[in-house]
C-alpha cells in the first residue's frame, strides 16, 4: 500500500533562519505518527507544509498521493486540521461551532451533534466556546477537525497547555480516533506524550530530523543502563557488589540503587535474597535519546 504522507527533502527558510532544513519521512496508512522536538525545532512549519498552508522552498510533499500546495480542493475534504484550541467563530456555542464547520464541508447538522458525543461534550453543547475549559476547548477543536470524517488528521501541539488530567482525557480521545483506522499526525514537545501515543516518532531539532522509529525501539537502541531501586537495609551494598560484579551500587540510606546494563542477574540476586521490597525498575526514555542525539538536556 502506498504511503499516506510522503515528505522528501523539504526545506523552508525565513530570512537567515532555516526553519525546516531537509526533512524526509513517510507515514503509513492508519499510522499514529509523532513529530517530537523542542519549541522552534521546525515541527509546526513541517506540519504546515504538509497540510498545504505553506509552500516549501524546496522538496516535495504528498498527502494521499496528491500535492497539498497550491490549495487543493480535492484533498481538503479528506484531511482534518486542528491548528489551535481557539480557532473558533466568536461567541458561538459548542454545538453551533461544530455545525458551522460541518456546513463548510456539506456535512449535515446531525453528524455534527454526534461528534459532540464522541469527544464527550454533549452536556456542554449550549455553552459558548469562550466559557469552555482548556481541555474542553481542545476536544471541541478536535471534533471540528473530525466532523467531516477525514482520512488523515493533523494535530499541532494538541495538549500544549493542558493540566495532567485533561491531557490524559485527550489521550483517550486520540487513541479512539486512531483505533478507527485514521492516520493521525501530531506534533508535540512532550516526550511522554510521544512515547505513549505514537507508533513512530520523528525527533526534530534545528530543522532536521535526528532519528525516526517506534519510541521503544529508539530507546532500546540507545543501550541505556537500567536503574533498579529497592528499600535500603534489606541487603548491604557490599554484599550486592560482591554478588553482581557488573553493577554500580549506591545506598543513600533510603534506597539501594543499582545501575546496570544487564538487569537480569541483579534482579535474580535480589530475589534470591528476598530483597525486592519497594522495587522500581527504570529504563531509558526518549529524553535520554534526545540527550544522546544532541548532547544537551531536553528542554521543552
Amino acid at each position, binding site marked *: 500500500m502506498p504511503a499516506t504522507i510522503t515528505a522528501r527533502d523539504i526545506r523552508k527558510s525565513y530570512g537567515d533562519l532555516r526553519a525546516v532544513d531537509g526533512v524526509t519521512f513517510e507515514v503509513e496508512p492508519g499510522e499514529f505518527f509523532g513529530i517530537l522536538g523542542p519549541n522552534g525545532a521546525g515541527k509546526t512549519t513541517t506540519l504546515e507544509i504538509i497540510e498545504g498552508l505553506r509552500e516549501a522552498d524546496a522538496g516535495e510533499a504528498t498527502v494521499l498521493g496528491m500535492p497539498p500546495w497550491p490549495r487543493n480542493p480535492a484533498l481538503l475534504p479528506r484531511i482534518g486540521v486542528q491548528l489551535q484550541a481557539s480557532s473558533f467563530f*466568536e461567541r458561538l456555542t459548542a454545538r453551533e461551532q461544530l455545525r458551522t464547520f460541518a456546513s463548510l464541508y456539506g456535512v449535515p447538522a446531525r453528524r455534527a451533534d454526534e461528534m459532540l458525543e464522541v469527544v464527550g461534550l454533549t452536556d456542554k453543547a449550549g455553552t459558548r466556546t469562550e466559557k469552555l475549559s482548556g481541555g474542553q476547548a481542545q476536544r471541541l477543536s478536535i471534533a471540528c477537525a473530525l466532523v467531516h470524517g477525514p482520512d488523515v488528521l493533523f494535530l499541532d501541539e494538541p495538549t500544549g497547555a493542558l493540566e495532567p488530567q485533561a491531557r490524559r482525557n485527550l489521550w483517550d480521545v486520540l487513541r479512539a480516533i486512531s483505533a478507527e483506522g485514521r492516520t493521525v499526525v501530531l506534533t508535540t514537545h512532550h516526550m511522554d506524550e510521544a512515547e505513549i501515543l505514537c507508533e513512530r516518532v520523528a525527533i526534530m531539532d534545528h530543522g532536521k530530523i535526528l532519528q525516526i522509529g517506534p519510541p521503544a525501539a529508539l530507546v532500546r537502541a540507545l543501550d541505556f543502563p537500567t536503574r533498579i531501586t529497592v528499600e535500603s537495609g534489606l541487603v548491604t551494598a557490599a554484599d550486592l557488589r560482591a554478588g553482581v560484579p557488573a553493577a554500580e551500587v549506591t545506598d543513600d540510606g533510603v534506597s539501594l540503587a543499582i545501575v546496570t546494563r544487564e538487569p537480569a542477574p541483579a534482579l535474580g540476586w535480589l530475589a534470591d535474597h528476598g530483597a525486592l521490597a519497594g522495587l522500581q525498575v527504570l529504563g531509558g526514555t526518549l529524553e535520554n535519546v534526545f540527550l544522546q542525539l544532541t548532547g544537551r538536556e531536553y528542554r521543552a
Partner: protein
Amino acid sequence: MNAFRSLSRAMLLGFVRDRGALIFTILIPVIFLVLLGSIYKSTGTPQVSVVEVGQVSLLDGAGHSQLGKILQITRSRNLGAALNDVRQGTEDAAVQQQGNALIVHYSIASQVTAGVVQTLFASIVQQADQQAGGRPAAFRLATRQVEDQSLKPIQYLAPGLLGWAIASGATFGAGITLVTWRQNKLLRRLRLAPASAGAVVGARIGISLAIAMVQLAVFLGIATTPYFGLKLTASWWMAIPLVACGTLAFMSIGLLVGSFAKTQQAASSIVNLIILPMAFLGGAFIPLNFAPTWLQDVSYAMPLRYLVLGMQNVLARGDGPASALPGIAILLGAAAVLTLISVRVFRWDQI
C-alpha cells in the same frame, strides 16, 4: 445548510451576542442623535418676535408668505413700551412704517438675533420692491434663500450621525474580524476547508450590509418621529444604495487596517484614529456649510463627506435621485482602490 448561509448565520450571531458592538454601532449613535437633536431642536429655524407699532403694510403681505412662518407679530400703539421690550430682550424687534420708510428697531445685545432681524427685513423690503416692479418670478428667489440657508438641525444631524455610525460599524466589522481570525488562526482553518473564499467574504459583506440597513432604519425611524420632525423628501430611497456603497467603502478601509494591524487593540485604535477625525473633517458632526474654508477643502478627501452629503441631498434637501450618483461613484471607487491595496498587503498569518 450551505457554507454561505451558515457562515452568515455564525457572523450574525457573533455580532448580536457582542453587547459592546451593539452598543457601539447602534446605541451610541442613536443617543447622539437624540441628545443633539433635542439640544439643537429649539435653535432651528429662527423665530423672530416683532412688535408692529402702528400700521405696517409691508408686514401684512409678509404674513402670508414663507417669511410669515418665521415672524411672530404682536401689535402695539406704544412705541416707548415696544422699544423697552426690545431692550429687555422679550421682543426681537419693533417695526414702524413712515410713508415708504420701514424703520426697524433692534438690540445689539444678541448679535445673532440682530443679524437675523436685519436680513429678514432686508428681504421683506426686497420682496415688496420686486412685487411693485411686477416681477413675481423673482419673489420665489428671495424666499428660497431664507429656506435653504438653514437646514434644520435634524436635517443635517440625522444624515451626519448616520454616516458616522455606518462608517465606524463597517470599518470595525471588517477590520476586527480580519485581525481576530488571523490571530486565532481561524483564517487559515477556513482556508483548509473546501468552502470558497467568496462564501467567506460574501457572508461578511452581507452581514455588514444588513447591519448598515438596520442602522439606517433605526435612524430614519427616530428622526422622522413628530418630536424630531425630519420630513423625508421624495427620493429618500436613494439613501439605501448610498448606505450600501458607503458600507463597502468603509469595509475596505477596515480591510486595509486589518491587513496591517497585528492585534485587536491595535486595529481598533487605528480605526478610531481614522474614523473620528474623518467624522469632523467629513462633515458628519458639523455641517460643512458652517465650516471654515480649509475644512471644506480637506473634506473632499474624506469618503465620509460623500456619504453624508449624498444622504443630506436625498433625505432632507429634496434633490432628485440622480444627486446621489456622484457620491455613489466616488464611494465605489474608493472601495475598489482600497480593496486592491488590501489584497496586495494581505497576510494569512502573523509571520
